[in-house]
C-alpha cells in the first residue's frame, strides 16, 4: 500500500467515525477543522484506523500527531512498501 492509498483509507475511516459521507481530509487537516473531533473521538479514530489498516499505534506515535499528515506518515512507516 502506498501513502495515497493510506490517506484514502484513513479518509473512509473519518467518514465512518464522523458519520459524514462528504467529509474530505488532507494532510493539513487538524482537529480544529472538524467540529466533532475532540479528545475522545480522537482515540475512537485511532482505534478504527488500527482495525481498518491492521496497524498498532504506540503512545509515542500519538503524542506527535499534529495533523492527518503525521498520522498517515506514522501508518506509512509501519506498512508502506
Amino acid at each position: 500500500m502506498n501513502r495515497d492509498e493510506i490517506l484514502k483509507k484513513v479518509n473512509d475511516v473519518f467518514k465512518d467515525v464522523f458519520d459524514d459521507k462528504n467529509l474530505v481530509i488532507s494532510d493539513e487537516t487538524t482537529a480544529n477543522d472538524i467540529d466533532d473531533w475532540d479528545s475522545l473521538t480522537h482515540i475512537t479514530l485511532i482505534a478504527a484506523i488500527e482495525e481498518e489498516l491492521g496497524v498498532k499505534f504506540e503512545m509515542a506515535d500519538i503524542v506527535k500527531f499534529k495533523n492527518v499528515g503525521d498520522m498517515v506518515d506514522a501508518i506509512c512507516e509501519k506498512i508502506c512498501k
Partner: protein
Amino acid sequence: MVFSSLNFLLVFLPLFLISYYLIDTKLKNICVLFYSLGFYAYGCIDNPHYVLILIASLLVNYIFGLIIERAVKTRKFVLTLAILFNVAILFVFKYFDFFIDIIKYLITRVNFTSSFETVMRIERLNLVLPIGISFYTFQIMSYIFDVYYKKIKSERSFINLSTYIIMFPQLIAGPILRYSDVKNDIEKERNVNRENFLSGLKVFIFGLGSKVIIANQLSGVNIDVNVFEFTSLSASTVWLESVAYGLQLYFDFYGYSLMALGLGKMMGINIMKNFDEPFKAVTAGEFWRRWHISLGSWFKDYMLYPILMSKKMTGLRKVLSKCVNKSFGNFFVNFIAMFIVWFTTGLWHGAHVSFVLWGLYFFVFMVLEQIFISKIVKSQRWLGHIYLLIVVIMSFTIFSNENLSVLIFKLRKMWEINKDFLDVNCINIFRTNLKAIVLGILFASTLPQKIYGLSKNKYLDFVIILLVLALSLFLIYRGYNDPFMYFRF
C-alpha cells in the same frame, strides 16, 4: 510575592528587567533563575526549606530524564519511578491529611477502631502547601513523559531545564508549559527587543487590570453575601453569588495567565495562552478546552490517552464492540477513562470532597453530552449557551463551598422557583456591586476586545493602557492586594 503587589511592580520587576536586558545573552537564564528563586523564596518566607524541595525535585527529575533517554529495557520502570517520586511529593504535602482523615472516618463508621489502632494513631501532618506545587510538579511530569515518549530529547543543561520549570512568570500558577514549546526560546539567543517588550508590557497591564480592576472588585459580592446566615439566602442571592464568584475566579486566573504571557514576551519566551473565551462554549467539553487550557491538555495527553490506549482498554473496546456494537464499545471505555480523569482533575484542585464532587459533576455532564446533549446544542447553539451557563454557574457553587451541608442547601435553593426567589437583600447586594458585576459580564464577553481591536489609533491605545495601569496601581495602593485564587492549588 504576587504580580499585583507594589513590591513586585515597583521593585522586583524593574530590577529584574534592568538586570535581564543588561546581562550578556549567555547569562540570561542564570539571571532568570536567580530572580525566580528569590521570587519563590519570598513567597514561602515562613517555610524557606520549600525552596530546597523545589530544587531537589528539579535535580531528581533532571537525572530521571537523562536515565529514561539512555535506558532500553528499564525505560518503563524508570518512568514509573519518576512518576511515583513526583506523585509522592504531591501526596505528602497535599493529600496525606485528606486520605488519613477519610480512612479514620471510615474505620470509625464501621466500628473497627480497635482492629486498626495503628492507623488510628497516625497523626495529620498539617503541612503548609508549598506554593505552586501542583503546577510545577505537573509541568516537570510532562517533561518526563515527553522524554519517555521520545517527543523531546532529555535536556543536558541543568540550567536550561531549571529555567523552564522555575522561571517566575509561570512558576506558581502556570500555564503548565511543555518543554517542546519553550525549548527553542530557552536554548537559543533570546528575541529581546523593543517591540516584544512593549507588546509584552501591554498584555501584562491588561492582565493586571483584569485581576485588580475586575476580579478584586467582584469579591465584594461574596463579602456582602457572607454577612447573612446561609439558611436565610434567597435563590436569586445564591445565583448572584455564584455568578460573581465565577467571574471573579475567571478574571483572577485569566488576569494572572495574561500577566505570565506578557512577562514571558518581555523576556523573549513564548508562554501559551491559558484561556480562550470560555463562556462562548456550548458544551462542558468545549468549556474545558477553553478554560485553563494547559491543565486540560495535560490530562488529555498524560492521563486520558494513555488510559484509552492501554492494552486493557483496547481489549475491552474490542470485546464490547463484538458482543454489543462499536458505539457501545467506544462509549463504555470513554466512560471509564473520563471518570478517572475527572475524579483526578477534581482532586488536583484541592484535597477536599467538594473538589472531587466538582470534578465528577463535570464528568456527569460530559457523559450526558456524549449521549445526547451535544447533538441538540450543536444544532441549537442559543440553547447550548443557556445550558452551558447554567452548568458552569452551578459548578462555581460547588467549587466555592467546601462545607457540604452549605453546598447542598445552596444547590437546592437555586432551584426553588417561587415567590421568594428574589428578595430585597439580593437587590441591595446587586446594587452595591453593580459596577463590578456589569464590568465582569461585559468583559467576559468578547465585545470590549472587538471594540478595542477596531481602534488603530496608537495614541488612544496608549491612553487606555495608561489608564488601566494607573487605576490598577491606585486600587493596589488602596489595599486591594489579595493573593491569587489559584495559588492555593
